[in-house]
């Protein structure tokens, strides 16, 4: 038997080519204009101030180059990455897992809810004492601070996503032979809440770069410590240099993750 499909098919709205479609020369020109204007303002302002208050963009560029040429920049970056990666990985993994478990199981939710509410408002920075006591002044200690920050972002994003999974999809899955919690979580809950979960991960890994500074406040080497020490010495050009490194790292990781996310969510 053959049936003619005469209905209209909505054409895919170019979602797959979204990355390229975003490139719009007018927007790029405006963006460049904004950057030029910002640099001009900055240069103008720096002329009226001593360099330890506000160095000129050119002075910062020179410092940036010097730090890179001496290798100091890459050493600091390498050190930060060594606790950024485990912090982000553990914080994300545990946050997503806890978010799924608590949103899925009313029992676990009831049991953990009071503890979660007490722990949630604790800023990662307030846990520096624990980081030192439990892990020491090392990558593990700094990773702990970063992981705590990533944990909560991922926990809440995942929790919200899982809570929003349609009961009807679960019914359909059950009627198609899916049995047991783990099986349902794997076949329906996780894929259905992937948009929220991946948005949480993306927000979390960005936040982890911000936490790098906090995590290094107690002396672990890296970009954060460079920024803190340079601040104490009024080396504002060095401070700005390493802020730029953080921004660049954030940008690179975010763009890469966004590309991954788009591929994983091509169905949206």
């Amino acid at each position, binding site marked *: 038997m*053959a049936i*003619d499909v005469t*209905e209209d*098919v909505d054409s895919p709205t170019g979602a797959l080519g979204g990355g390229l479609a975003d490139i719009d020369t007018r927007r790029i020109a405006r963006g460049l204009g904004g950057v030029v204007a910002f640099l001009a303002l900055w240069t103008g302002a720096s002329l009226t101030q001593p360099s330890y208050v506000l160095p000129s963009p050119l002075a910062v560029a020179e410092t940036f180059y010097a730090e890179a040429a001496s290798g100091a920049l890459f050493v600091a970056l390498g050190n930060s990455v060594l606790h950024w990666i485990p912090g982000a990985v553990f914080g994300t993994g545990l946050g997503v897992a806890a978010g799924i478990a608590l949103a899925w199981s009313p029992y676990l939710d009831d049991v953990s809810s009071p503890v979660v509410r007490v722990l949630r408002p604790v800023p990662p920075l307030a846990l520096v004492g624990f980081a030192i006591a439990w892990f020491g002044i090392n990558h593990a200690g700094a990773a702990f601070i970063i992981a705590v920050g990533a944990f909560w972002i991922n926990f809440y994003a995942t929790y919200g996503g899982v809570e929003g999974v*349609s009961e009807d999809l679960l*019914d359909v899955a*059950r009627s198609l032979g899916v049995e047991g919690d783990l099986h349902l979580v794997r*076949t329906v809950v996780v894929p*259905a809440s992937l948009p929220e979960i991946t948005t949480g991960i993306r927000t979390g890994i960005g936040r982890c770069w911000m936490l790098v500074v906090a995590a290094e406040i107690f002396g672990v080497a890296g970009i954060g410590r460079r920024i803190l020490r340079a601040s104490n010495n009024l080396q504002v050009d060095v401070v700005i240099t390493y802020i730029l490194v953080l921004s660049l790292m954030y940008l690179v990781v975010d763009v890469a993750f966004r590309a991954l996310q788009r591929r994983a969510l091509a169905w949206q």
Partner: protein
Amino acid sequence: MAVEPRVRVDGVSKRYDGANGPVQALDHVAFDVADGEFVCIVGPSGCGKTTLFRIIAGLEPATTGHVALDGGRVDGPSTDLGLVFQEYHLFPWRTVAGNVGFGLEQAGVATAERERRVRDLLDLVGLDGFADTYPRDLSGGMKQRVALARALAVDPGLLLMDEPFGAVDAQTKTMLQDELLDIWRETGKTVLFVTHDVEEAVKLADRVVVMAKEPGRIREVVDVDIDRPRERSDDAFIATYERILDRI
């Protein structure tokens, strides 16, 4: 010895605790569906037909009474019952082929065999060529075809459909009804089809279970003894249609 019915709905009642005291959603609903039969449940909104659908599907328990499928009590959703909903409920992250093959994957059917069966099912519902399309790019009628193929994939003993064509335009609805009848003939499935549309019920069903509301109960079971394809301009069609409409 009498042949056992495929489905037996045995004295099913359902009470809810509403804001103004208990609500009797269903009151002693009882009927049988024979193997290979096409039965429609028709009734006005609020007559409890969706509640009845959910109880038969094992998605919620009856307060009293029970539903049996091939003699075994229904106590939860299973692959014996293929569900098709008005709102499709496709898995949006899966392609058309991924949706249709979902039940086969859970059953552990090997990839090559699964692909072959998915192809056959897509052919059956007229969606060959759309295997790799995601649900967001399908029209309502096409989504419902995918949902039907997905339900048929696990070869359920009963196809249970809740207002499946309620969300598509009139032209598509007529087309889907004809296709469903073709598929029913071709697969020999037993179909239980919930609708509020009397004309649809008369067009499709061997028997129509007519429900009334407050409380939700069976008013009458009407045999539709008209040869298919049925024309709505046909005298027998009109007579049956009016007879059912009178009871609602």
